[in-house]
């Protein structure tokens, strides 16, 4: 036996797959968003509102990977977006290979924006590159402003933080300023959008970001 030195990251095979997928999506003009959050953060409601607002101008698709999301897939389709349920069999995250299989099964023809609804937790999904163009995470007001302290990696790897359920702010001791400060300390480049999908507050700013980034991706 001989010793072979490698010094390779254990996720290297995934990182390579993710790069290849990202390149292919760029060529096809599909803007893929990896959407991460805890379970119950209002992800599906937020997505539904986004689809309703943008479906006239963009062809939207949703890859549902959350374990409890079969109901969500039907809801998304009723709004007029393409949707597929990925059966993750209890896995705690999506990797690039699983994302590719889901996208291929769904078909990427006539898609401008695709959302990957990742598994609902703030730990494992942050460690795997899915091949997405951008990472977006959702934190809801009832979850609390201390989450950046507890799950720093998730906030560090995200390009956008959407704070949902802003209409419930009067009922919780959620300090938006403190939360923003904590998040920006971890990740100075992050875009933060406080929204309420229910009242529509803040949705316009988020959608403008999405439209602009999609335009850049398709160039």
């Amino acid at each position, binding site marked *: *036996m001989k*010793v072979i*030195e*490698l010094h390779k990251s*254990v996720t*290297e*095979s995934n990182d390579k797959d993710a790069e290849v997928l990202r390149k292919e999506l760029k060529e096809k003009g599909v803007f893929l968003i990896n959407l991460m959050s805890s379970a119950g953060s209002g992800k599906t409601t937020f997505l539904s509102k986004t689809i309703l607002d943008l479906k006239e101008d963009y062809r939207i698709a949703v890859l549902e990977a959350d374990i409890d999301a079969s109901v969500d897939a039907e809801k998304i389709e009723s709004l007029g977006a393409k949707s597929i349920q990925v059966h993750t069999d209890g*896995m*705690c*995250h999506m990797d690039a290979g699983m994302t590719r299989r889901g996208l291929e099964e769904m078909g990427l023809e006539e898609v401008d924006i695709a959302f990957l609804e990742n598994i609902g937790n703030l730990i494992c999904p942050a460690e795997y590159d899915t091949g997405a163009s951008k990472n977006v995470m959702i934190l809801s007001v009832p979850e609390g402003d201390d989450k950046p302290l507890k799950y720093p990696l998730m906030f560090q790897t995200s390009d956008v933080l959407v704070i949902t359920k802003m209409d419930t702010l009067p009922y919780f001791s959620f300090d938006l300023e403190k939360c923003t400060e904590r998040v920006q300390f971890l990740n100075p480049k992050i875009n933060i959008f406080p929204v309420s999908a229910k009242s529509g507050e803040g949705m316009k700013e988020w959608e403008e970001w999405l439209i602009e980034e999609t335009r850049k991706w398709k160039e």
Partner: protein
Amino acid sequence: MHELSIVTHVAKTLDELAEENHISKIGSVTLEVGEVSGIMTDYFEDCWNYFKVKHPLLKEAKLKIEIIPAITFCEDCKKEYETVKYGKICPHCGSEHTYLKIGNECTIKEIEAETEESQG
């Protein structure tokens, strides 16, 4: 929390390496695991032993784990300290402006392998 999927990614990397280098058998795999990488080494070993018997290349591969101690660097006083003992706040000057220098990684350091050449 995702030890088994890390095992499958390691296997994939080694499969590719084996093909490029005509490796027929792997005797051992040494991983460097950071103290705060979030990987439970006991559980990782269980996953390894469960997985390897199903994977011809790794069937006889022993897993060796080397722990890398976590070190945090303070941007204010420019000193280093043990992450696990003190956390985010610098014990030298009390600053919060600190970042993890090492201890979050998980890498395949080396393997012991039999190649077709070394056999013949």
